[in-house]
């Protein structure tokens, strides 16, 4: 199944597509005085699969919210010059918390983005059901969020973000609440889809392995203040499959990323890391 995708693989994995968005010297200081981001420069190209990796609290979610337009930077700017207005508004977002409508059942929650675009229940049903099958939730259409387990809620949220097939997909630790096997499956699914549709993904994760497996670029961030510590290009070709997962290349890249992450964490100032 994966073999037939080879033809559509991108010319280069390091993302030389046209520029979608550039963060230029972006900083974000919250009103309580916390500097969440400081002087972040980052260019996102169309078709990128970019992972944000970094310690907890380093501003990954904040960066994602800035990109989505849900927050505005307190300094610097977001440069969308390279993209059309349609791109900017065609965003799928997986929040770090499930963020479901508590009164609506699973079907309605996933249907919602389509509903907001005027798609009727009947028209939406096949798409919604397909998305639910993808995240292994067939049979739970009628359950309301409080009847779901943590991981199931997160999967509903993922299904909802993807149901509109957006041009830009922003995902904030979407698979953190899932077991490794399901996670691998969903990783493969996502990659497959991405190769088919060539949308742009910005993917926040805590897993070095996941970031290396999925992305063509890994941006490692450091905390206090949140900033870009280092960027790694993952120059392995797509499609990536189980063979890649067990290859020495992958292990080497993971080790490299891991070292960068350790560096990022150690570069964090503050007395609370001294004890370790």
């Amino acid at each position, binding site marked *: 199944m994966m073999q037939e995708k080879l033809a559509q693989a991108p010319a280069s994995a390091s993302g030389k597509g046209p520029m979608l968005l550039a963060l230029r010297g972006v900083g974000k200081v919250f009103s309580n005085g916390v500097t969440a981001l400081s002087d972040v420069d980052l260019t996102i190209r169309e078709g990128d699969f970019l992972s944000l990796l970094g310690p907890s609290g380093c501003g990954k979610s904040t960066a994602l919210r800035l990109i*989505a337009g849900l927050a505005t930077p307190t300094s610097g700017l977001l440069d969308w010059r390279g993209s059309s207005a349609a791109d900017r508004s065609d965003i799928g977002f997986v929040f770090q918390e499930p963020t479901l*409508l*508590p*009164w609506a059942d699973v079907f309605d929650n996933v249907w919602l983005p389509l509903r*907001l675009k005027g798609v009727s229940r009947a028209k939406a049903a096949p798409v919604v059901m397909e998305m639910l099958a993808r995240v292994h939730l067939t049979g739970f259409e009628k359950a309301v969020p*409080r009847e779901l387990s943590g991981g199931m809620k997160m999967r509903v949220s993922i299904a909802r973000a993807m149901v509109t097939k957006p041009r830009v997909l922003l995902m904030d630790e979407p698979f953190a609440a899932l077991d490794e096997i399901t996670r691998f499956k969903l990783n493969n699914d996502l990659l497959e889809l991405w190769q088919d549709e060539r949308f742009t993904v910005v993917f926040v994760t805590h897993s070095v392995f996941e970031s290396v497996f999925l992305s063509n670029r890994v941006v490692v961030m450091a905390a206090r203040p949140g900033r870009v510590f280092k960027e790694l290009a993952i120059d392995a070709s797509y499609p990536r499959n189980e063979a890649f997962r067990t290859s020495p290349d992958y292990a080497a890249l993971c080790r490299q990323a891991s070292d960068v992450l350790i560096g990022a964490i150690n570069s964090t100032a503050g007395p609370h890391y001294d004890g370790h």
Partner: protein
Amino acid sequence: MTAIEEHALTLDPEEARRVRQERLERIGRWLLPLAIMVLAIWLWDRICIWNDIPKYILPRPAVVLQTLFDDAGLLFSSLLVTLRITFLSLLLAVIGGVGLAVLFAQSKWVEMSFFPFAIVLQVTPIVAIFPLINIYVDNQTTKLLLCAWIVAFFPILSNTTLGLNSVDRNLRDMFRLNGATRWQQLRYLRLPAAMPYFLGGLKIAGGLSLIGAVVAEFVAGAQGQSSGLASRIIEAGYRLNAPRLFAALILISFTGIVIFLVLSLISHLILRRWHESALKQER
């Protein structure tokens, strides 16, 4: 297995206590309110006896009940008149309260501009402005409705406004991202989220619209032929017919309780699938 279970039951007296208590509570939930009601009525009777209270001041419950029975025709036809105004004004209060709340939710400055007028309506004594209403409104029902509405709409407005403003931030962001129009945001997010607050306001307004209907009739008078409970109360008071006065009051109280129960039930049915206040504790 049973041996172990038994063992476990004796082993865990706390668990057993809990089960016992739950069973008790299930019975008590219906029996106790009734018992306490009966007790209250008995106390009322005793107080009348102990203090030698003459029946024209506070009649004994049996007398009131007898009157309720004897004058049933008169009182219930009056009750119907009052109920009609009550329900119509509650309906108007819902429409007006929710409508205004939705309007106010559109923008902070709309809220700040028009909320004062809502407050003015709430705090204006009906008795004082009734002469104006009386001059410019011709229809008697309209007058009554207007008065009762003024009494009842504010809690719905206030609570619904609060609810519309209490929507989870992330959900709001999610709607924004999906390009929801103002109307869609209202329809699919803010109104459902405001439900618990609105229903809370409705429960307050239920009683208020009943008292509003009574007060309206007090003020606007029984200028038509069909007089409601307020007219009965005035008349009974004037004629020192205390048993009938209390029979009418009992009828109003009872109606209030029924309205509250019905609204609570509606509220429960709407919220039971998702809101904490209505969820069954599932262990």
